[in-house]
């Protein structure tokens, strides 16, 4: 019968446990029938040291090697009495890797859930805005004003800055191309049309998604975690009507208002470039812009901005309301809210362009 003994020194703590584990591994690999660990000399120990002993017991058990402990002091026994060594040595059940179909389901299901909750929230919001007032349930306009302050006024500086720079950039790009044919004046057309119909609403909505969809998702998510949404429900207050509707209305309003400001400032940026670099008079630029733009374009762009804004509002709130898993969940839905908002904005934009083309042709 093969038999080995490991003698542990005076200390069995986080400084010396590594050595014990190496010794145990080496002895167990040699496949004796039994390894005796002599702890008789140990004067100082901590839970890491005893953790090393338990780890050795488990691993030896897996290899079919018996380990016997010798000379445990009373303090060690006291520490061991707080745990069950048998339970600790029981191997944890191996994680079963789910089959591909299950994994696909685990990926697709939350996605479908998100889309479903976005649609449900959109429907509830539409009901609260268009149907409920007919039955005398008021829309919380006071709260909407506060939300407008957050989402529109708060975003104003960044929207002005981005629009001015984008106006300059667009004018610069257009100028480089048009100069070849001596058609510099058409810079006004290019900046005006692209900003009004496409870039204005789109960039405003993306800024809103980054600012408001994220903050709405995080705020509502934190309220879910703090049971505040449940508290509202319990008080007979509809959370969508109370919290979501003002946010969605504010986002929709902010998108329209900010995209108008975006258009004006971007065109001013274009005009500044045209005047400073291409030598086009501001009056001529303005006249050229006016000829290029039509009221119908502005109306379509405003409706588009309105839908983008409502989409940003609904997505942020819908995802925020279905947070699961505490603070980590709040972080996750915040990211998802921004990503899904931008994705849906592009989708809605594509739908608008397709419809416009169909109407025109």
């Amino acid at each position, binding site marked *: 019968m093969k038999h080995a003994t490991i003698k542990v020194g005076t200390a069995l703590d986080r400084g010396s446990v590594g050595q014990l584990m190496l010794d145990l591994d080496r002895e167990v690999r040699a496949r004796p029938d039994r390894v005796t660990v002599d702890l008789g000399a140990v004067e100082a120990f901590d839970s890491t040291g005893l953790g090393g002993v338990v780890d050795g017991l488990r691993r030896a058990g897996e290899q079919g090697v018996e380990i016997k402990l010798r000379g445990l002091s009373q303090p060690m026994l006291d520490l061991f009495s707080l745990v069950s*060594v048998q339970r600790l040595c029981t191997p944890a059940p191996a994680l079963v890797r789910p089959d591909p179909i299950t994994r696909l389901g685990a990926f697709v299901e939350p996605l479908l859930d998100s889309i479903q909750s976005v649609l449900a929230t959109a429907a509830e919001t539409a009901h609260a805005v268009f149907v409920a007032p007919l039955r005398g349930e008021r829309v919380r306009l006071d709260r909407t004003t506060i939300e407008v302050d957050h989402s529109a006024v708060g975003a104003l500086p960044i929207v002005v800055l981005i629009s001015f720079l984008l106006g300059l950039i667009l004018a610069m790009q257009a100028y480089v191309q048009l100069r070849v044919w001596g058609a510099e004046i058409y810079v006004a057309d290019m900046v005006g049309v692209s900003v009004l119909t496409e870039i204005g609403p789109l960039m405003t909505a993306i800024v809103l998604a980054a600012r408001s969809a994220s903050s709405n998702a995080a705020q509502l998510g934190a309220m879910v975690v703090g049971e505040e949404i449940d508290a509202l429900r319990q008080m007979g207050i509809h959370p969508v009507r109370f919290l979501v509707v003002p946010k969605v209305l504010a986002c929709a309003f902010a998108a329209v208002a900010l995209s108008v400001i975006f258009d004006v400032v971007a065109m001013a940026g274009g005009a500044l470039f045209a005047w400073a670099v291409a030598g086009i008079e501001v009056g001529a630029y303005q006249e050229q812009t006016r000829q290029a733009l039509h009221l119908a374009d502005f109306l379509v762009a405003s409706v588009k901005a309105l839908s983008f804004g409502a989409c940003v509002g609904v997505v942020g709130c819908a995802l925020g309301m279905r947070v699961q898993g505490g603070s980590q969940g709040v972080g996750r839905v915040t990211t998802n809210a921004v990503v899904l908002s931008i994705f849906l904005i592009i989708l809605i934009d594509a739908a608008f362009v397709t419809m416009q083309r169909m109407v025109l042709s």
Partner: protein
Amino acid sequence: MNAPATVGGRAHGQARRTTYDLVRALAVSTAFGDRQVLQGVDLAIRRGEVFVVMGPSGCGKTTLLRHLCGLQPPTLGAVFVDGIDIFAAGAAAMKRLRLRSGLSFQGGALLGSLSVLDNVALPLRENTTLPERVIRETARMKLDMVGLLHAADLLPSSLSGGMKKRAAIARAIAMDPEIVFFDEPSAGLDPITAAEVDNLICKLNQVFGITMVVVTHDLPSAYAIADRIVVLLDGKVAALGPRDEVWHAADRRIRDFIERRIPTDDARGMDVAAHMEI
């Protein structure tokens, strides 16, 4: 509502029902994924009593409370309030039920953007057409009842844990409900504040006749306030009946819980001996 009050896993000698059942849970079972939280819970809460739901952490107390107050439907089974199946009755009936009940959450669940007074006034503002002056005065009265009038204008973030709980109680009773649910009203409070909260629950029950459903694992508090007690163990009703009857129940697991004994079947102990050299 004329079904006999035969409830729970154990006969408790309650042959004749003298008071009126306000809430009944019928074969309520709930699972979260693979985890069975509640299994066939049957119980009846009578009008005007203080009903305490006791049990160790993770035994399904809070889940049961969420079913009873209508926040979350059980996987199986039904909850009746005044004989109406609340999860089958539709949104309007659910709203009527909610206006008759209050819930004091474990963490308070006060709206962070509103002052304490506005939190208490919120259900009145949203659900009634009372003039603002009446609403404010009612809210101030409720705050005074819980001893928080001085904190009326503070935001919830600047309140201590005990103050938050008391503010939540004030909000729960804002609409003069018939029934108030409490989730761990004394958890995390110092003994004095916990006793104050217990006292408040008893007073509200006596003065207004409000039916109180209290979920707690705080034994002294449960003993101090309860008319009847249900003990949940592993999601099942282990005992149900008048306080003293449950308190002196013979069942070993109930005794372990009430006498705060570590369960004897726990494997912790000296099983390291198996690995010692004799």
